[in-house]
């Protein structure tokens, strides 16, 4: 993993999110207030625009600059959560050397743990954490196990999709959908959907390599 890797992933994700923007917006209008997709799109645009400023920086510095950009440029829950994600990833020890798959797993796990702490949300609450926490748990398993990387990434794609779909029948207890009670049932959580798309895009790009 390098700063260039992060930027190229942000570009890939931007394409996929734009393609699915109408669907995510509709999900959010069903159970939220419709701002999620704009926040995600704004965040991706800001990160992509950072390219020239950060492309030659060491990973830790690059991550911190992305974190500050995301934190100050997005707003809403997404800004705080994704900002926390990058800020914590940057705090993973030993980022100076070569970042192999295990180290990358460790970084993502650290980031997701911090998001969980910040949002005080756990699985089963109909939020993006329903996708991210199980993915983080799987990464932890892959990190210490001997599953091949491609196989592991395929499993993660599957987990993210299953968990995203599972938010459909949940009652929300966190975020704006929590105000809906029973009426939130039957709708996939927009944050879970955008997170799943992000994970899917990253994993697929790695498998194809």
């Amino acid at each position, binding site marked *: 993993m390098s700063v260039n890797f992060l930027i190229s992933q942000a570009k890939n994700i931007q394409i996929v999110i734009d393609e699915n923007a109408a669907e995510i917006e509709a999900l959010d209008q069903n159970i939220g207030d419709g701002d999620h997709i704009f926040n995600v799109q704004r965040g991706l645009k800001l990160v992509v625009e950072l390219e020239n400023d950060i492309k030659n920086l060491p990973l830790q510095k690059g991550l911190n600059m992305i974190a500050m950009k995301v934190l100050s440029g997005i*707003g*809403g*829950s997404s800004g705080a959560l994704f900002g926390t994600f990058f800020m914590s990833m940057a705090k993973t020890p030993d980022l100076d050397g070569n970042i192999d798959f295990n180290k990358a797993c460790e970084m993502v796990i650290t980031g997701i743990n911090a998001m969980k702490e910040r949002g005080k949300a756990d699985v089963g609450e109909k939020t993006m954490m329903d996708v991210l926490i199980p993915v983080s748990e799987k990464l932890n398993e892959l990190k210490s196990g001997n599953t091949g990387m491609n196989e592991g990434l395929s499993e993660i794609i599957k987990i993210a999709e299953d968990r995203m779909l599972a938010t459909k029948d949940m009652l929300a207890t966190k975020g704006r959908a929590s105000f809906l009670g029973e009426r939130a049932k039957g709708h996939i959580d927009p944050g879970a959907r955008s997170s799943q798309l992000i994970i899917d895009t990253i994993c697929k790009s790695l498998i194809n390599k």
Partner: protein
Amino acid sequence: MKKFINNVDDFLKESLNGFGKAHSDIIRVNFEPNFISRKTKTKEGKVSLISGGGSGHEPMHGGFVGHGMLDAACPGFVFSAPTPDQMQAAAENVDSGAGVLFIVKNYSGDIMNFQMGAEMYSGKNDSIITNDDVAVEDSTFTTGRRGVAATVLVEKIVGSLAESGGSIEECKKLGEKVNKNSGTMGVAFTSCTVPAAGKPTFDIGNDEMEFGVGIHGEPGRKREKIQPSKTIVNNMLEAILDDLKPQKNEKTLLFINGMGGTPLTELYLVYDDACEILKSKGIEITRSLVGNYCTSLEMQGASITLLKCDEEILKNWDAPVHTAAMRWGM
């Protein structure tokens, strides 16, 4: 979408520009990071009050910056919580050394961003969370009740105490008392349209209303057929009284708040209905506020807030205030 817009991306900036120019005698607007602060420096020893939230609720919160109310307000994008760097910069700008009390509406995004802002600010600070919306069931396992129109009352009443030299602990205590003693219920007849979305946030039939609506057009308790004002007001008040359980002859402040698209003519009619219903229940209305204070863009609808008042609350409510949106006694 029909709105006064030049370019969607410039919507907030241009609106803040206008606000700054229109009220240059009271406030100044800082850009990047965005915050509105008083024109004059906070006097030494006075606790600074800072609030903020998504834009689209004007005059909340920028309209409440000035003598007797807020020291600064941090506006986010329309309906999106502001970012931590805004709160940090506002705090550094206005704190005179007595510390900062953040007033935060109970929405996940606001809570997280204000928390991060507070962590980033090195000076003394504390927070009050408002959660007056009785439409939402409260529970320790959920986000809980939303902070809505009573936030205006908290900002006015705590603002007065801070102005007269109250400590950060005393201000927090009074703010929590006002929040605990108030209940709000909202109803919407139409949706609002977020500029970036370009279309209404929710669909609602010509003969329908959303009972218990939030201030971002997020749904409430139920969708119902529209009814005569007396019936709607009665149902709203019942939800509030169930929650607040005021004593007979208890003094209250009755606040009828417009959501942005309902004329004052109707808001006063609602006030009349509410007075009659409360009178029949033996509840005394000793103070009133009617107008558009905590809006949801152009949404048609209104919320009713009832605040149980003791002497301390009344005294601070009556104290002079001079902001863009609220002014009396000076």
